[in-house]
């Protein structure tokens, strides 16, 4: 094996010129991460947003089409779904900002705190819909 001197990392573009980037809380400190990591962070954000949109679409369907179940059940289901969607979209943004900051500071990436609540909410809604379907 021929030994080679370590090559400089040519994957990472030079530090970005100072431009006005928002939010300041993210961009005011740290160094420029590999832009591919920022793009991956952005795709994770978009996946959370799509999850929120899917929950919202189910909320609209339950709200409009589940009108032959007790009204309390319908309202509870719609409310749970819409609230979960709200939490997901807020967490999408918060997670994006925290991850971007952590990458700039070489800190460990934060774990999302919304995963477990999301699982619990979806499981509860699925259980409720199953109960409704089997008791009619």
């Amino acid at each position, binding site marked *: 094996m021929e030994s080679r001197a370590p090559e400089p990392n*040519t994957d990472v573009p030079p530090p970005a010129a100072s431009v006005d980037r928002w939010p300041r809380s993210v961009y005011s400190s740290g160094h420029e991460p590999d*832009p591919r990591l920022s793009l991956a962070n952005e795709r994770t954000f978009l996946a959370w947003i799509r999850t929120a949109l899917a929950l919202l679409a189910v909320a609209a369907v339950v*709200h409009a089409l589940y009108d032959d179940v007790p009204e309390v059940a319908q309202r509870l289901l719609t409310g749970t779904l819409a609230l979960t969607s709200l939490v997901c979209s*807020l967490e999408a943004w918060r997670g994006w900002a925290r991850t971007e900051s952590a990458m700039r500071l070489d800190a460990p990436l934060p774990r999302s705190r919304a995963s477990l609540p999301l699982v619990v909410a979806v499981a509860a809604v699925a259980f409720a819909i199953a109960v409704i379907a089997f008791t009619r």
Partner: protein
Amino acid sequence: MTEPVGEKPRRRDDTGLQPERTSLAWQRTELALIGTALGLGRLGLEGVGGMVGVATYAAVAVVGCLAIGAWRRAALRTSDQWALLDGRAPAALAATVVLMSLLELASLVLA
């Protein structure tokens, strides 16, 4: 992981198609938003705002999101720009979805 000897060093603008994947993720999100906005407007808000409100709501959500996505995807097309993306487009998109969720909750409480 070691690279095979003799392979050319990766070029600075070799991005592993990351901008393209991100661009497609934005497109998928736009499609999901169009579907949800139309469904929510047609199904969820009908009783509250009437058809004018529904049409306005769907139009604002769809046009707004398409604009945000197009803006982002335009920036992803050129390599000197995508390295400098910031949080404005994600924030605007998240705010749109937050607003949609709040509208659905409001229609639930008011109906």
